[in-house]
């Protein structure tokens, strides 16, 4: 630090030089490597040591040059940046794992066939290289779509009408009190653990049909809609609230009744936000595993009827392929299927998220400019 390479100026005198982080970083890398070598070298260990050294030494250097307060400030800054980088690690790792393990097994066979007729012997033959890998996730994809469809069909009307009640009809004293209670309950409902929602649906249908082993796709849909309704309500409520009051008043002034105003003016104005909220809610429940596990059972064949017979969805397919491999001696084949199914699931969820953003952007109401 003896020779400053930049031009001395009174404005930056007493400040740490700009190359300081780079220098400290290089030093931390070298020292970290040395320390890691002492304990037993490993890339992960090296990264950890270097990171810790960097976060400690950088602010210390700044503090020595610029004073304690600036040192503390630098320490906080390094920690905040560090937290962000740390949070990226699992995301990158998960996406990389799913892509690298799921892509090789993702073919038409995976997409268009079910697990019907696929046994341990088939998998053993595939592992020995005698036959291609048979069996896919078609039945699970169908199950996912059917279960989610029924859940959406139940949740959207209830959620949307509730939001309308909360925004448009909560003016009076009694209805205002009801609205406050409902808002609180919706908040509570947001926090219901997914497994409890599944148990509720299971318990409900056991009670109704008086059959303890009652399992079908529709029960799973009921469980999912318990999870979906609060999301829909909150999103729709937010969107209805930002519809300007002038629009409603203009409509009333023309003699249009309230319900007509809501269906013809308020909802069309907010429709982009509402539909993107619904899409996000679908994306949230489509990956749920636990409620399906306790309500829909598990099959290896195609069943598109939600009202009779057991049903498999993508998440439960992944779960059972991992927990109970088709061929216990060659679990790798089943694991490969699980990762391919995981890839399909992630793609579906991401596409839904993208669609939601697109809807919100493309169909956003014209602002009149």
């Amino acid at each position: 630090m003896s020779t400053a390479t930049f031009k001395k100026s009174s404005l930056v005198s007493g400040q740490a030089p700009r190359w300081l982080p780079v220098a400290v970083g290089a030093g931390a890398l070298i020292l970290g490597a040395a320390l890691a070598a002492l304990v037993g070298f490993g890339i992960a260990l090296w990264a950890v040591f270097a990171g810790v050294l960097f976060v400690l030494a950088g602010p210390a250097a700044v503090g020595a040059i610029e004073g304690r307060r600036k040192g503390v400030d630098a320490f906080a800054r390094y920690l905040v940046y560090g937290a962000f980088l740390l949070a990226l690690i699992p995301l990158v790792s998960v996406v990389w794992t799913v892509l690298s393990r799921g892509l090789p097994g993702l073919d038409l066979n995976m997409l268009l066939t079910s697990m019907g007729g696929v046994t341990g012997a088939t998998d053993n033959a595939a592992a020995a290289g005698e036959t291609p890998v048979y069996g896919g996730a078609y039945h699970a994809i169908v199950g996912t779509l059917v279960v989610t469809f029924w859940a959406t069909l139940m949740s959207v009307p209830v959620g949307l009408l509730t939001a309308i009640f909360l925004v448009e009809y909560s003016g009076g004293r009694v209805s205002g009190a009801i609205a406050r209670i409902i808002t609180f309950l919706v908040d509570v409902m947001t926090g219901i653990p997914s497994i409890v929602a599944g148990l509720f649906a299971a318990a409900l249908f056991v009670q109704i049909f008086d059959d303890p082993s009652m399992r079908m796709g529709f029960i799973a849909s009921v469980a999912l809609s318990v999870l979906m309704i609060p999301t829909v309500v909150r999103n729709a409520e937010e969107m209805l609230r930002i519809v300007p009051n002038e629009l409603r008043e203009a409509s009333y002034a023309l003699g249009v009744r309230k319900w007509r105003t809501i269906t013809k003016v308020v909802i069309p104005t907010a429709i982009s936000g509402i539909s993107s909220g619904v899409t996000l809610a679908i994306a949230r429940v489509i990956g749920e595993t636990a409620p399906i596990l306790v309500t829909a059972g598990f099959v290896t064949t195609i069943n598109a009827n939600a009202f009779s017979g057991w049903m498999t969805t993508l998440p439960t397919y992944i779960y059972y392929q991992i927990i109970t491999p088709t061929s216990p001696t060659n679990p790798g084949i089943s694991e490969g299927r699980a990762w391919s199914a995981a890839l399909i699931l992630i793609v579906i969820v991401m596409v839904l998220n993208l669609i939601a953003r697109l809807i919100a952007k493309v169909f956003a109401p014209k602002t009149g400019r």
Partner: protein
Amino acid sequence: MTQTAPTKPEMGEEPEDRPAAPGPSAGPAGSPKQDATFSGLALAASLVILVVLAGVALFLCLQAWPVVGAPADEFYGGEGFLSYIWPLVAGTLIAAAIALVIATPIGVGVALYISHYAPRRLAKPVGYVIDLLAAIPSIIFGAWGASVLAPRVVPLYDWLAQYLGFLPIFAGPASATGKTILTASVVLGIMILPIITSMSREIFQQTPVLQQEAALGLGATRWEMVRMTVFPFARAGIISSVMLGLGRALGETMAVTLVLSGGPFNPSLIQSGNQTVASEIALNFPEAYGFRMNELIAAGLVLFLITLVVNMLARLIVNRYKEFSGANS
């Protein structure tokens, strides 16, 4: 969420729309009777929510009822419901607590990065990226934790057992597969991180700009500004976001089911053993019948009550501070 506020609506739009959109039977303006029907429908829909929540409590209670007064040796383990449920509750609380310890500082740090540290152009994409973390289904986190994370942490656990083994929580020998409650907690921490981040971020961004500029104008460094203006303003919001994260961590199922190789209660975090309520249900319910099923539903009821209390507390904190801080989320 997307905020698409139509700021200047066109006033002349409505009458032109009207002739094109009459209802099938009524005039375009509707009748008072239809008005009443529609508001009744809206009210009914909101009552459905009340009924559903009451139904959740009612049917869980109904199906859990046989557990009350059943002889102790009928229970799994043979020693009554309490001794069946307490290790599960303990495991749930331990896993959630560790997850919180991991996720809170990092979550708040990331939120701070997005709201006050990141370059403005970067802040929005970074927010999306963190939201992506929230969009990944829990089963995939579970599979990742079991097959990628667990083998990687084994050396760390060996080290902990060797040097910190005198602490009961790190008592060795460490699990050779890494499928322990500590690993499960790390995965849970990753899963609740986006919840804490997105809520804290929203509140950080609402901190009054005047206060922040005043602090900077008085010569505060950025960190001093954050400590003096942002944190006091957002305290309630941070607490409630952490509570919501806790609620999620308590109820999360699949990540624990896949990552943890469960067993009876074990104070050591780096050995296999322990189990959470949610994971116990998911593992056993598909094959359960008869009394075992009632027992598992009773366990679910316990979980429901715990998360209910946590979530209500979180909401109460938010609502109490709402008027002062504008932290409404």
